[in-house]
């Protein structure tokens, strides 16, 4: 009887955690995960506006992608661009998507998530010690997974094992 009760309690907890859901939509397209996840975590498209993804996915940009050649076949390129723009900031549902979209001035197409005002505000000195971005465990601002253990599952909030403070202990 006690075991049953405990199980029920456990299920209830799991269900409420799930109901909370990821704050950011999980990137589930296998082609995008594979091709845009080879050198770094595949970033969720809602962190940049569609015009940024369009620019990044131009062939002449892809061969010099942040100092590296990330070229794709034309078929892959068009499919990935379509996915990214269809799930971009302001297009994907949810709070983070809307906040990113609102933060980027309309005439700008930043290629870095880490240069959007929304990202910078969430990672301002005081929230994050700027020196931590250079620490050997992190290496780069773009290494989201170093601090957000659930980043590839769309989990960036302050709870559970995704918690930055938990990680630092």
């Amino acid at each position, binding site marked *: 009887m006690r075991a049953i009760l405990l199980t029920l309690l456990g299920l209830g907890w799991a269900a409420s955690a799930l109901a909370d859901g990821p704050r950011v939509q999980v990137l589930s397209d296998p082609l995008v995960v594979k091709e845009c996840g080879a050198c*770094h975590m595949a970033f969720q498209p809602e962190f940049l506006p569609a015009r940024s993804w369009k620019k990044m996915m131009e062939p002449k940009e892809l061969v010099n992608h942040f*100092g590296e050649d990330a*070229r794709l076949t034309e078929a892959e390129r068009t499919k990935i661009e379509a996915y990214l723009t269809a799930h971009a900031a302001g297009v994907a549902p949810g709070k983070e998507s809307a906040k990113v979209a609102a933060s980027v001035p309309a005439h700008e197409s930043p290629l870095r998530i880490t240069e959007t005002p929304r990202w910078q505000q969430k990672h301002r000195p005081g929230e994050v010690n700027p020196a931590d971005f250079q620490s050997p465990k992190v290496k780069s601002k*773009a290494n989201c997974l170093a601090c957000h253990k659930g980043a590839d599952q769309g989990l960036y909030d302050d709870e559970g094992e995704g918690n930055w403070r938990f990680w630092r202990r």
Partner: protein
Amino acid sequence: MKKTFVIAFVAAFALSLAGAAQAGNPSRDKILSDLKAQAGGDFSAQRGQTLFQSKFTGGKEDTPSCTSCHGNSPQTIGQTRAGKSIDPMAVSRTADRYTDIEKVEKWFGRNCNSVLGRACTAQEKGDFITFMSQQ
């Protein structure tokens, strides 16, 4: 009757295992033989090692060498500039290396351009895979 069958089966299985260990992977062999047809000559593991370890100046400034990302030895885990780990390049450590022609062509295309500032030749690709297959 039944016994001979079992023996024959076991023998065939053992043979197939030995064959696999020797001949390597059929997809990788196919990739190498296609490259050989293009290159004309034989491949050299020694030249493959030189390509892997040399520093170049013709490519992008952050990536002077294959070892910039793949680590100093084919046996070690590498790391991209964004901090993601890369499985070792040696076939003995990562069994499915150089078995998918599209993957192989995609990454030679990108990485030779990033490091050397040009495409690699069939000779260079064959040398590289030959070296890594013996590691």
